[in-house]
């Protein structure tokens, strides 16, 4: 009696195993199920042999499942007819069939696990290497949480569901067909009667889940608002306390919580009756077989053993029917997941092409922007007819209010984005003709939000140049006054940074990212508000390091603090995507224009 056959891994909440579906829940569907499925199949093509083996094992399992009750009925008949000599032989046959069936189940599970894990690995790898080569613009405009969830949940869901659900769908269909055939072979009238209970099952499931869907949706919505309240109020607890709102919040919470309980009870009473109703139908099937079977047996149409076989068969074919609907829903939601994954893979990767290399250019290249215009969203110009020439070794400061287009200039120079019109030249060559790898190799960038990796300090520094020796690395760190800071960390250069580098201070984070830029020995340096996240006195230590970094380099500095700007060779004031003024600090102050205004509101603490 292979009752347990399908009660597999899914009961163990293994991340990756297919999740038990809530009958009441809505199933999301893929927009183009067929296309997605075909593309999905491509991932399984290299698994042809494994899939064949899997299906073969499924088939073997089903055949055993159908044969075993037949043998069992013969054994019962042997007892009824007092033909005891036959019993050992029959039982031996059954034992063999059971053994084969278990072996098949084992191999089936094994192949299914191997296939799904190999595909998950491949798919995730493909997706990652695609994401990492997407243009910055894609990642800027899409929620990171969403991308992450496609990477983990969707991929997982897709490959495991496909390999597991499809095999259980296949075995379910085979079992139903085989069992029904066997039943009709044994006793057509009894078979017809027990099939009729299936109709009840289908009808009851359909009716109940339709009714449940509504109440479940209501409960889900209330649960959402309850969780929202808890998150908000516990998260903003300081504000709750500061305004003595505890009682008010508790009252609010009580109201939602009571409502949720009401909705929950209504939903669950329907859901809870599912079990007894199914039980009722199964038992009715049992009675039909026992009573009618008994009647037929009395008439001599069938033997007693056949009744016992029917009891097993009825169970065996009721289960897949109940399951098929669920599995079908899972396959659909997996396809929807696959569609989301493929949507990312369909995005065109970043264009990194370019025939020239920076090494073909003069060692201290100049930079020129000629009539560059750009918009992130069509129709909303961020940069308009921007022209600027930066001579080799010059330090340029870009200043302006938020949204004036400072960072856009950097984004374009790095080829993170492509200008709508106009050209940017480095060393006289259009940067579109320089391969972006080579271009980026020549430029180092220090950002406002330092990005450090959960790795050792050493590896973080060497990120800029993996081939650098320890001595060189330390020399660089020393040159930009970071060495002593690093040595004061717990394990010096071997200190392991936690995720988000939260185990070192903001100032230390920024110092590390400066040292990293230093190690890359760039020809061009970009500092994008590199010190805005640290307080002013820490900034002064960082300032020293930055000065060393800027020495003898062509620099583009986006700054919001006066101290960084005063030493620039040229200050460019941006206003709504266009250059408003250029000049040195003194010159611009005298002009009494935009810069003067900016200076007064942003920098001059006591310029009253």
């Amino acid at each position, binding site marked *: 009696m292979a009752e*347990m056959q399908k009660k597999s891994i899914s009961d163990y909440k293994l991340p990756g195993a297919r999740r038990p579906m809530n009958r009441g829940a809505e199933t999301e569907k893929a927009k183009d199920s067929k296309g997605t499925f075909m593309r999905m199949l491509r991932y399984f093509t290299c698994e042809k042999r494994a899939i064949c083996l899997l299906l073969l094992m499924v088939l073997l399992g089903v055949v055993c499942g159908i044969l075993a009750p037949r043998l069992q009925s013969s054994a019962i008949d042997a007892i009824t007819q007092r033909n005891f000599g036959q*019993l050992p032989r029959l039982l031996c046959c059954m034992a063999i069939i059971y053994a084969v069936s278990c072996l098949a189940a084992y191999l089936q599970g094994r192949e299914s696990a191997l296939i799904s894990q190999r595909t998950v690995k491949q798919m995730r790898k493909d997706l990652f290497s695609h994401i990492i080569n997407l243009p*910055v613009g894609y990642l800027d405009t899409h929620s990171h949480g969403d991308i992450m969830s496609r990477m983990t949940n969707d991929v997982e869901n897709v490959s495991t569901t496909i390999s597991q659900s499809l095999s259980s769908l296949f075995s379910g269909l085979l079992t139903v067909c085989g069992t029904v055939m066997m039943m009709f072979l044994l006793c057509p009238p009894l078979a017809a009667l027990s099939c009729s209970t299936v109709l009840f099952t289908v009808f009851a499931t359909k009716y109940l889940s339709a009714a449940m869907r509504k109440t479940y949706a209501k409960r889900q919505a209330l649960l959402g608002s309850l969780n929202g309240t808890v998150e908000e109020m516990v998260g903003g607890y*300081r504000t709750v306390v500061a305004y003595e709102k505890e009682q008010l919040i508790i009252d609010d919470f009580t109201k939602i919580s009571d409502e949720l309980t009401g909705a929950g009870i209504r939903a669950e009473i329907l859901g809870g009756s599912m079990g007894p109703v199914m039980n009722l139908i199964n038992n009715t099937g049992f*009675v039909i077989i026992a009573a009618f079977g*008994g009647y037929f047996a009395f008439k001599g149409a069938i033997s007693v053993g056949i009744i016992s076989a029917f009891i097993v068969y009825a169970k065996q074919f009721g289960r897949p029917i109940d399951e098929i609907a669920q599995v079908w829903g899972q396959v659909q939601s997996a396809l929807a997941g696959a569609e989301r994954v493929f949507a990312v893979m369909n995005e065109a990767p970043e264009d990194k092409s370019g025939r020239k290399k920076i090494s073909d250019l003069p060692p201290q290249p100049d930079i020129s922007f000629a009539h560059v215009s750009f918009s992130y969203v069509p129709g909303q110009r961020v940069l308009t007819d921007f022209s600027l020439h930066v001579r080799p070794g010059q330090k340029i400061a870009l200043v302006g209010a938020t949204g004036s287009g400072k960072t856009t200039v950097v984004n374009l120079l790095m080829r993170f984005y492509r200008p709508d019109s106009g050209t940017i030249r480095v060393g006289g060559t259009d940067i579109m003709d320089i391969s972006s790898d080579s271009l980026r190799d020549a430029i180092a960038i220090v950002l406002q939000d330092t990005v450090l990796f959960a790795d050792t300090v050493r590896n973080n520094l060497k990120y800029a140049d993996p081939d650098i020796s320890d001595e060189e690395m330390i020399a660089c760190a020393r040159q930009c006054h970071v060495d002593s800071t690093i040595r004061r960390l717990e394990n010096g250069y071997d200190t392991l940074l936690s995720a988000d580098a939260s185990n070192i201070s903001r100032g230390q984070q920024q110092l590390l990212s400066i040292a990293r830029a230093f190690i890359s020995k760039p020809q061009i340096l970009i500092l994008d508000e590199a010190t805005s996240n640290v307080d002013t006195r820490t900034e002064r230590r960082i300032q020293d390091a930055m000065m060393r970094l800027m020495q003898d380099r062509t620099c583009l500095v986006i700054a919001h603090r006066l101290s960084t700007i005063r030493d620039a060779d040229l200050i460019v004031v941006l206003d709504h995507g266009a250059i408003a003024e250029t000049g040195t600090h003194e010159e611009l102050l005298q002009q009494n224009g935009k810069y003067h205004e900016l200076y007064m509101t942003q920098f001059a603490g006591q310029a009253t």
Partner: protein
Amino acid sequence: MLKHLRKYLLFALLAPLFMLGEAGMDLLQPTLMSTIVDEGVLGLSNGGVGDPDIVLHTGIKMILLILAGAACGILSGVFANIAAQNFGNDLRKDAFHHIMHFSLAQTDRFTTGSLITRVTNDVTQVQNMVQMAIRGFVRTMILLAGGMICMMRLHLSFGAVLLIAMPLLLITMFLFLSRVTPNFSVLQKRLDDVNNVMQENVAGNRVVKAYIREAYETERFSAANEKLVSTQLQILLLLNYMTPIMNILMNLSLLAVIYIGGLNAQRFAVSPGHVMAAVTYLTQILNALMRMGMMFQNISRGMASAKRLREVIHTVAEITDGPRTDIPLSGGSIEFRDVSFGYAGRENILNHISFTVHPGETIGILGMTGSGKSSLIQLIPRFYDVTEGAVLVDGVDVRDYPLAALRSRIAVALQKSELFHRSIRENIAWGDPSADEDALWQAARTAQAEEFITAKADGMDTIVAQSGHSLSGGQKQRLAIARAVLKNAEILIFDDSTSALDLKTESSLYKALHTAYSGQTRIIVAQRIASVKDADRILVLEDGAIAACGSHEELLAASPIYQDICRSQTGGAANG
């Protein structure tokens, strides 16, 4: 926690009672079937002549029993639901009530995230556990015990099969689960690693590209991915042995029952109908046994949640009302008397701080990150209690006030402007729910928020997105300030709450504040000198102690630290 269940004890008892009905009916079926076979078909007690009437009667009896069983089942479900959900509701409300009375030190200790999980997820877990205990567990137990009794009543020798099969099944299950379970935490770790690499690459995408490390990152990801997949595979393959082994055990027991049945039938000790019934009982029993294994897993998960909830419910609020009932008239004076403070279990952040703020005075507090500024002002509304010394408001120790009386005379705009997912109007009115429209707009105007509120399509009725994501940092701060201003308390505290405003807006804000709400005592915590230079006095905090105190001019003339800060903020132009 049991006391929460006591209220619904009636339902909690009715549920298993009715379950007894449902499961009992299930247990009767195989016996009745054996009657059909033995008496109706084979006519064993009638000399081998069957009787269709017996078949018919027994069939009808079975149908009636089934209907009764289903009715019991549904009722049991209803009662179990009522008991479990109401229990969960009370538990949830109780836990939330407790949390709302915790001190900040206590919420820090639990961490916000963990408190949220406890009220939401853990309550659901415990509720599910209760529901399962009074319904599913009872059903399984009845089927298990009842099935065994019924089977042995058929013939004692069947019991021998159970005696061998059941322990074997349990041991197998236990062995597998105990080997697999530790792997789950490894799996979680591996999953975190993959997510971490992913997160770093998505968020730090510019840096990866700038240093041309795409290939390296792909490699790094592959390694993490490989590890995750191999751990997962290991678990899957291990579990994959379990099902076939359990199946073979079950099937062997089945064969044994038929064989023993056959032997006994030969001696006329059992009838063929009994053998059939025994086969059905056996499946029922062994399936129940396996479900039991799964349930124990759920129960252990539920118990862990129950423990986490008990921690919340049994935690006594640390900061409670003080004894004084004769509260002094409000004036707005604050005194720190030799105050030292440190967060639980860590070294002191503030050391021996003493100063007095007179009614109507404006005090600026300046200091680096980590100098203890925020900790200092949190002692005034008793967000935390001092470690040593005392904080006095209007001459009375803050610990002696009833909490509401103390906090009603203090308005704070916090460093992290926490806004709620409601309309702008409700967010501002949070400061004073009774305020009329004019007062709301006046507060908004004072906080320099009028302009951007009017610019919104829905004005005051604009809904602020979750955690204020729809607003810029400066806008959030201005709303938080409007809220604090509206409260119109004697003491107003700004905890670095203007850091995202430009100097022009900030100075207009202070000007408006002076004209609209004069006579207030104000404490302004800031990093920028510009924010505090107009204060009556400025305290410079360094390493948890007062390093300097005086007006802007005095400090500029006499305090080297202040001069130093000045220089760093204005690029050397310290002469104003």
